[in-house]
């Protein structure tokens, strides 16, 4: 099947969604996605940030689709033509979507641990307007501890359901979910039950905002002060391939490795994530690639730095390992 997105044509299998086809093309045509997660089944279709304009339905029926469609849920047709960033309608509608997502978001980025690697921050920066028109009171929730390692800030949640799908599909028993409906919907654990599962920590990584954060990293540092290092260890539960966020010899936190779309490459277990916080537990492979524009690369190193598993890594004149 042939599909054209923003003038780029690609052959894809039947059943591929527009978003997946756009990601195959890569580069500038990829629509942003807040709820869709390629590793989680049934995710997507909730946040509407990935909306695109279908200017030609298919070869057989070339009429355009009347409304903008969610690209994560719409499968391609042969000869389909899609407009993403070339369509003024899409950009305008996406600006509206961002405004809706930010209606109840507290905008406490200076406090939030996710700031600097937050997808909502990126989205608002690229597609939103600089000012809010919202004057009413934002919805408020108290902070909840989900277990002793995970903190839930319901005020920051955008209800993408990713964590629910993660708990459903990665762990064998889900104890948290979305309670209530509509405006009062919230992520909860029914009587604040702790999530006790070896893979429950992955909800932190899939959360696009700072709603689910690592309690062991809470207020420790900011993401742009710590250096991400690729590291691995042999783990009997997971792949053991992680990113260590270090400063000097301290490991501040451990996360899974993420691909260019901000999605986890392989899920990691809670032992790797919460318990192995010493450099000696890990084999350092080298600095993790960071986008050059990212604030995380500030005062550090540039994208595309290739390092072949050295025994000793040094930054400046301060030895990191030795």
């Amino acid at each position, binding site marked *: 099947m042939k599909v054209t997105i923003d003038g780029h044509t690609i052959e894809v299998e039947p059943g591929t969604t527009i978003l997946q086809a756009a990601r195959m093309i890569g580069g500038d045509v990829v629509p942003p996605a807040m709820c869709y997660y390629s590793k989680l089944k049934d995710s997507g279709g909730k946040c509407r940030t990935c909306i695109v304009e279908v200017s030609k339905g298919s070869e057989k029926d070339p009429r355009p689709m009347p409304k903008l469609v969610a690209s994560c849920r719409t499968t391609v047709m042969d000869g389909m033509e899609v407009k993403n960033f070339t369509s003024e309608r899409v950009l305008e509608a996406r600006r509206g979507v961002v405004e809706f997502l930010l209606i109840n978001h507290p905008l*406490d*980025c*200076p*406090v939030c641990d996710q*700031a600097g690697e937050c997808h909502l921050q990126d989205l608002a920066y690229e597609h939103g307007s600089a000012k809010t028109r919202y004057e009413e009171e934002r919805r408020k929730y108290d902070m909840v501890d989900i277990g002793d390692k995970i903190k839930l800030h319901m005020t920051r949640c955008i209800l993408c359901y990713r964590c629910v799908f993660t708990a459903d599909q990665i762990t064998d028993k889900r104890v948290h979910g979305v309670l209530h409906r509509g405006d009062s919907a919230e992520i909860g654990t029914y009587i604040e039950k702790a999530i006790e599962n070896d893979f429950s920590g992955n909800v932190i990584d899939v959360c696009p905002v700072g709603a689910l954060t690592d309690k062991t990293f*809470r*207020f*420790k*540092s*900011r993401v*742009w*002060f710590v250096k991400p290092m690729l590291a691995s260890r042999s783990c009997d539960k997971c792949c053991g391939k992680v990113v260590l966020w270090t400063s000097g010899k301290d490991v501040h936190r451990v996360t899974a490795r993420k691909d260019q779309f901000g999605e986890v490459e392989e899920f990691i277990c809670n032992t790797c994530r919460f318990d192995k916080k010493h450099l000696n537990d890990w084999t350092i492979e080298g600095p993790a690639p960071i986008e050059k524009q990212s*604030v995380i690369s*500030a*005062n550090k190193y540039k994208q595309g730095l290739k390092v072949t598993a050295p025994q000793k890594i040094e930054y400046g004149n301060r030895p990191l390992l030795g």
Partner: protein
Amino acid sequence: MSGITLTNRKKVLEKKKLSFSESLYLPAIFGGMLITLKHFFMKKATISYPDVKRPFSKVYRGKHVLKRDDQGRENCTACGLCAVSCPAEAITIVADERKKGEEHLYREEKYASVYEINMLRCIFCGLCEEACPKDAIYLTEDLTPANFTRQDFIYGKDKLVQPLNESCHPKTNQPYIKDGKPYEYKNPVYTK
């Protein structure tokens, strides 16, 4: 010496024989004294510094101050934007979580338990002031005085945070105005 010269502005000094009046030197001496006397009555270029101070420019950038809000709570939330924007890497922050009962001390749920500026590193560019999203740090008209040890140039929160009894804006020195009249400033009660 050959006739090569580096410049054509060279002058050859001629030693003339002095005339009688010139050889007395008195006109030259009085001429010099007159210039000295004239300077007695001219406006002085210097001021006697500690007693008299020159007015600062409105955009002068001197010692930093960490501002408190109109209720005396610290504005800084330790977001780290000042430290990351600092080209001299002079700022060090350690964040801490506000506990229950400290709401009158810190405005946000996170605060800076350590906020240090190395005044030897600081270049007073004002980028921290510009980066601050919480209206917390300002560069004032104060100077950072000279000192004897390097350690004394690392200014902690004890030197940076605005004193509690000040009720005016650190930059403009204008009193806080609320409902058209100066805001009555209440000192928060510290409990340990």
